[in-house]
């Protein structure tokens, strides 16, 4: 009712604030502002309706709490990011080539070679992305190196290069923006141990829980965490056997470093062996030998984390610290594996580059032979037309970029298979067995050994992050990889939602996910940088294949950008030359370093100001309390101090409250003298004197 009256009033007197000629304009502006607000609100409504999977995630949230749901929200965010990247790749690279480029089979790089044509449609060949898949838009080798294609004169090589760089740039921007937003909301600067008890009390209940079983679990975990924290506070350093503990920790770290080194070596060895296999005839190899690399990598990813957990039992850390160590080790494992794989690949690539030189020489030699023959037959030495060989018969170079792309695609596909199998067997089968065998088994399967699985949030999130890293690395060499990833994310969302609801139980321990949100974003950022480096390295140092891909025929891949700049009108070329001047770049870098230093200093100053204000509040409160309690004695004390009279010692000791603030504030006299209020200083120093 009141709202209606207020609205009526406002409408009646709306334009009345603007006077004279400006009235109409003012009324118009106000009306536009209202329309804008309404439009914004409708747009917000529309946007919330568009968010996919909202119901599903809400269901998971009400059963499992916000920590498990945070994984699905992260997955959805990844899906959004990948969708945009896929849009770039698809719209700016794949579609132009398909619509405006030369069709399949017209030039050598787009045709299956003659000797592979019989097996090109076999399922076994296709499942390894050979055959027709290899010579399609999915991989780098298909793209033509014509500078402009079609009637729109679309510059495909330039677009390919810029999209490759743009993918990293966009991902970087989005990740940093999300991190900043999380930090703003979460007050990430807070010290974790600052308010442990208060937060446990005021914020640990998850209001989204709607399921009684989950609620019971939550009660139990809250109680446990209270009791643990109380014990933690009371327990001081356990001095017993500190040497034994240190020895055990060193031993554990040594074991883990050994296993990390072992896994790295194993991968290197396996990749080298697969290169030897590639040279052999492929029909003689078993399925295992062909897919050895992916199999070994996935196996290591499955086996090592539980191994680390068992070894970590030796260390006897607080669970939170143990979890951090575990995550760090899994991270090191994945990183080591990925980089060993990359190094082995780079060796492979160098080998192929050598082979390419040989083939180039062969091709040139064959051409010269042809020219010689032609001259012999037709007595013409100039303007000899090129030999007409069917595209399928031309001698091909080994196209290392497509090989690298194929390796990444195979790795991603095998990773998908392993994840799905783990979910089906590890969670679903386990739940089925526990549920149905329980009727005829000796001990209670549900409460005892296997029981139902819990949803492993950190493992899943790390897996997601590393998959994304592989996608980032491989997309430059296999544009179709992005499409595969989109399919994977969508199917993974449905599969995992179903699996969580049907075969998992809520966690027994409360797990703070939102604090870790920025932690996972930080890992994602790190992985982004780490996957950027190999791609940039290959772009800068390796020369592209001479007969496949959009950069063929050039010395280095970035030459395409340099050529385009040179072809631009002169003043723009000048701008670029000036902008890439080292002096300018160095000064910009220096400026940024200075800005970082300045902001750091400012934030430290704010923290100090905070502490000072807190102290001020405390002191004001003390002063008020003391004034209330014993007015006379305070004044008396003050007067006596100033007079420095010897009968100070006759003053009665202060009331019980006074010493308390002092004992609780671990401040020294020096700090007190800095603070405002000399009265406070004198009073406190006086009470200290009296006490001693």
């Amino acid at each position, binding site marked *: 009712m009141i*709202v*209606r009256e207020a609205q009526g009033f406002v409408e009646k007197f709306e334009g009345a604030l603007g006077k004279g000629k400006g009235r109409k304009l003012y009324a118009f502006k106000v009306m536009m502002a209202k329309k804008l607000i309404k439009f914004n*609100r409708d747009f*917000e*409504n529309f946007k*919330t*309706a568009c968010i996919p999977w909202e119901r599903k995630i*809400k269901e998971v949230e*009400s059963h499992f709490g*916000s920590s498990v749901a*945070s994984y699905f929200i992260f997955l959805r965010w990844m899906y959004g990011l990948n969708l945009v990247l896929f849009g770039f790749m698809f719209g700016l690279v794949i579609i132009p080539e398909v619509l405006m480029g030369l069709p399949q089979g017209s030039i050598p790089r787009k045709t299956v070679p003659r000797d592979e044509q019989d097996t090109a449609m076999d399922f076994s060949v296709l499942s390894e992305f050979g055959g027709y898949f290899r010579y399609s838009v999915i991989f780098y080798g298909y793209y033509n190196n014509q500078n402009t294609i079609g009637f729109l004169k679309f510059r495909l090589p330039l677009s390919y290069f810029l999209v490759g760089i743009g993918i990293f740039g966009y991902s970087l921007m989005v990740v940093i923006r999300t991190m900043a937003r999380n930090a703003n*909301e*979460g*007050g*990430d600067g*807070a010290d974790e141990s*600052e*308010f*442990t*008890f*208060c*937060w446990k*009390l*005021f*914020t*640990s*209940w*998850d*209001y*989204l*829980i*709607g*399921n*009684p079983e*989950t*609620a*019971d679990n939550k*009660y*139990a975990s*809250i*109680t446990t965490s*209270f*009791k643990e*924290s*109380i014990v933690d*506070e*009371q327990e001081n350093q356990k001095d017993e056997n500190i040497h034994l503990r240190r020895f055990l920790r060193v031993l554990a770290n040594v074991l883990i470093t050994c296993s990390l080194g072992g896994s790295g070596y194993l991968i290197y060895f396996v990749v080298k062996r697969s290169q030897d296999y590639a040279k052999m005839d492929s029909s003689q190899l078993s399925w295992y030998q062909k897919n050895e690399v992916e199999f070994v990598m996935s196996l290591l990813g499955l086996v090592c984390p539980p191994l680390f957990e068992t070894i970590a039992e030796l260390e006897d850390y607080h669970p939170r610290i143990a979890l951090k160590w575990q995550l760090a080790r899994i991270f090191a494992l994945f990183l080591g594996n990925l980089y060993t794989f990359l190094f082995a690949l780079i060796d492979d690539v160098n080998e192929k580059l050598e082979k390419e030189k040989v083939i180039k020489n062969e091709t040139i030699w064959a051409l010269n032979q042809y020219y010689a023959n032609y001259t012999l037959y037709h007595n013409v030495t100039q303007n000899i037309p090129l030999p007409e060989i069917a595209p399928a018969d031309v001698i091909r170079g080994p196209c290392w970029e497509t090989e690298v792309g194929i390796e990444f695609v195979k790795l991603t596909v095998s990773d998908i298979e392993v994840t799905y199998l783990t979910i089906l067997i590890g969670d679903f089968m386990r739940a089925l067995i526990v549920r149905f065998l329980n009727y005829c088994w000796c001990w209670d399967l549900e409460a005892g050994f296997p029981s139902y699985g819990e949803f492993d949030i950190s493992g899943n999130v790390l897996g997601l992050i590393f998959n994304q890293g592989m996608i980032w690395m491989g997309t430059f060499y296999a544009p179709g990889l992005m499409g595969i990833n989109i399919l994977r994310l969508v199917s993974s969302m449905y599969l995992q939602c179903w699996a969580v609801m049907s075969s998992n139980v809520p966690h027994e321990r409360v797990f*703070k996910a*939102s*604090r870790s*949100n920025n932690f996972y974003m930080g890992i994602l950022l790190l992985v982004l940088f780490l996957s950027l480096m190999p791609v940039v390295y290959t772009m800068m140092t390796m020369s592209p294949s001479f007969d496949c891909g959009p950069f063929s025929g050039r010395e280095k891949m970035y030459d395409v950008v340099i050529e385009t700049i040179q072809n631009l009108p002169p003043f723009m070329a000048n701008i670029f030359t000036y902008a890439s001047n080292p002096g300018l770049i160095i000064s910009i870098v220096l400026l940024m370093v200075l800005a970082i230093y300045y902001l750091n200093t400012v934030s430290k100053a704010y923290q100090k100001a905070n502490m000072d204000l*807190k102290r001020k*509040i*405390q002191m*004001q*409160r*003390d002063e008020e*309390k003391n004034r209330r309690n014993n007015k006379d004695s305070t004044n008396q004390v003050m007067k006596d101090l100033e007079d420095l009279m010897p009968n100070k010692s006759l003053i009665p000791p202060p009331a019980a409250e006074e010493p308390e*603030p002092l004992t*609780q504030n671990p401040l020294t006299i020096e700090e007190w003298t800095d603070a405002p209020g000399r009265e406070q200083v004198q009073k406190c120093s006086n009470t200290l004197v009296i006490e001693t």
Partner: protein
Amino acid sequence: MGATASKLPKDQLSEYQELTFLTKQEILLAHKRFNELLEREDRQQIGGSRVPMNKILTLPELKSNPFRRRICQVFSTSDLRDGSLSFEDFLDLLSAFSDSATLEIKSHYAFRIFDFDDDGTLDTGDLEKLVNCLTGEMDNTRLTSEEMKQLINNILEESDIDKDGTVNLSEFQHVISRSPDFVSSFKIVL
């Protein structure tokens, strides 16, 4: 939706949108759910009628919540102070617990919910009741009295800046604003 279900008039809908943090779909969903809780004869005049507290507590979103009674009492504007909610109270509740509500609103309402004796500060009695709510109703999950005392001491040490033995609204907001979990866990979505 039967023939007796009343629809929300458009101007009221836009009014509610302006006054709360909820989107149009959320308000319509709230209307539907509130309708279901009303007795059959009250359904026509949804504006005036109140739903008694025991009916509100049957909502699945509130059923498992340890603070459900306090939530009803805080948001209720009934003169009888019996915790019954009208439709606008219900919308207030959902708005305060929605995604788009600000931290200040949430912390303000959280403070009122935790203040069991409604005296404007969280003293030892309030904190004790709070802990007991969180540790469940059964005896084996409760804390012993020494543990309780220790816990409350620790809490007051951390949050009581002016050392008066109670936590007032600004101290509470200070603690809550540094917490990264609060906004995401203090949410109820229908």
